[in-house]
């Protein structure tokens, strides 16, 4: 549709406002993590840094437990993402490629399960994990993270399976490839965008998870970033430089990951409607 000069002006202002809303806080935090402490807490804040220092990052990496939290989070998030992808592929193949009795009912049941408040299962999970000795283990967090990511991941898989014509697999079958070979050599390579979308979703979800991590992990050496970092906020006087550096470093992995596969994630989120 044609857009007049007024239309362009309104659009440009709206785009700028949106970009400002999303990016300005990130810009301020990222740049301020390199400012000297007195510039960070100055009564007149600066949009562009006037000082430069690496002292906050030095302190964060050398004297705080941040590196431990960071590594724990990478381990838990990567494992959760991997397990979620494998399970979502298995379930996706069953739901979207096979025919069996009760398929639609099971699929719907999984989607309904997602609607329950997570706080409801917090207490039973805690008591259950306490009984079987899973408290204070990475495995506990991976189990919980996979559980929360899986229903949504199966839902996202639907789009990616639907985008692949069945004829491809049938052709491979006619050529004599067995089911297993067809899946490994034809289906999985073609499903890479879907796998990427699920991986980033599960990774982000577990990178962010606070509630269960705060209850299921007890020892400081096993803490993940969200809980560990929140502990640093609470300590004595707030050291903003340290926190801003910690915040910036915590955002980095998900942003890098997202830069590679973000568009597949958005496609999965919108059932491929957004181009």
């Amino acid at each position, binding site marked *: *549709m044609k*857009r007049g000069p007024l239309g362009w002006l309104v*659009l440009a202002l709206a*785009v700028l406002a*949106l970009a400002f809303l*999303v990016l300005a806080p*990130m810009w*301020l935090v990222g740049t*301020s993590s390199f400012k000297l402490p007195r510039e960070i807490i100055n009564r007149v804040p600066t949009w562009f840094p006037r000082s430069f220092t690496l002292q906050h990052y030095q302190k964060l990496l050398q004297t705080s437990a941040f590196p431990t939290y960071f590594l724990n989070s990478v381990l838990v998030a990567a494992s959760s993402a991997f397990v979620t992808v494998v*399970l979502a592929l*298995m*379930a996706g*193949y069953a739901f979207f490629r*096979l*025919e*069996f*009795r009760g*398929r639609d009912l*099971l699929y719907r049941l*999984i989607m309904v*399960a997602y*609607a329950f*408040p997570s*706080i*409801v*299962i917090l*207490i*039973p*999970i805690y*008591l259950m994990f306490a*009984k079987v000795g899973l408290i204070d283990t990475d495995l506990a967090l991976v*189990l919980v993270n996979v*559980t929360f990511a*899986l229903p949504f991941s199966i839902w996202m898989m639907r789009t990616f399976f639907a985008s692949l014509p069945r004829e491809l697999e049938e052709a491979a*079958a006619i050529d004599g490839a*067995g*089911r*297993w070979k067809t899946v490994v050599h034809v289906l999985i390579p073609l499903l890479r965008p879907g796998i990427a979308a699920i991986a*980033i979703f599960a990774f982000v979800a577990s*990178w*962010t998870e*606070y509630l269960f991590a705060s209850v299921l992990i007890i020892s400081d050496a096993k803490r993940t970033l*969200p809980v560990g*970092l*929140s502990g640093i*906020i609470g300590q004595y006087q707030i050291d*903003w430089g340290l926190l801003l550096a910690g*915040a910036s470093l*915590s*955002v980095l992995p*998900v*942003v890098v990951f*997202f830069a590679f596969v*973000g*568009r597949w994630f*958005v496609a999965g*989120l*919108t059932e491929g*409607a957004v*181009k």
Partner: protein
Amino acid sequence: MASKPISSGRGGDGRIAFLLLVVPLGLLAATLIVPMVSAITISLRDIRVIGSDGPFAGLDNYARVLGDGTFWHALGISVVWVVGNAVVQTILALTAALVLNEKFPGVRVARVWIILTWIIPTVVVVIIWRWLLSPSGGMVNPLLIQLGIIDRPMGFFASGPAAMTSLILINSWRWFPFVAIMLLAGLQRIPNDIYEAAAVDGAGAIARFRAITWPLLQPTLLVLTVMGTLLSFNVFDIIWLLTAGGPAGGTETLPVLIYETAFKAYRMGDAAAMSVVASVLMIGLALVLLDRLAPKETAR
């Protein structure tokens, strides 16, 4: 099963389906369904020591929880929280979705990266806004003064209503891009021909929005309202880390109260009872929303 054809007829895939589904569904059953059921049994017991089942208490926990004002107070706070988030997020997300539905240089990048606020950890959202809103070095107060909106620095968490407003805005900042992307998908499903026909008939942008976009977006908005209600009701970490329910219980939503009851006061039975009542309310609300809102929209 190595050399079987892809589709072996109706119902013939049962064995493979079972093999593929047993692990994913088993996990979901063990970590979602079993806990949901055991939330009910826990709520009927008087658990004081972790690891012991505690004596059967019947409906005592429910009677105590429902007879206490704090539960109803937290429920009221939760209602304000859910409604506030729904309103703010819908307005922001709809605006963003309409903008992203236009064609302009860089729109494809914008459609992906708008979700940035959603992929960063909540604890980082908390750090960002605590600092931006703080009187020492925060950018928001000076900016608002410069724009002439306020004339002296304000305390964003000083009173219950102020803290609630700040929390709703911060949580909306985190979530509105996610909702916007979902709305954008809804917008893109509206065929372009309808707009072009309306434009030929001389309908302006606002008329087109009211006659085409708004009604055709209703199904998407309905789903997102129900989903958003459930999601924002559940939000715990952002509230806990920013205000911990304060000041004076002004932001103590039900999840915060349940968490405190279970893991600060160690009254697991009471907390479980509250969480069961909360789920019944949420499921009821979701059903009512779907039922009440849906027929009206399709009839239009």
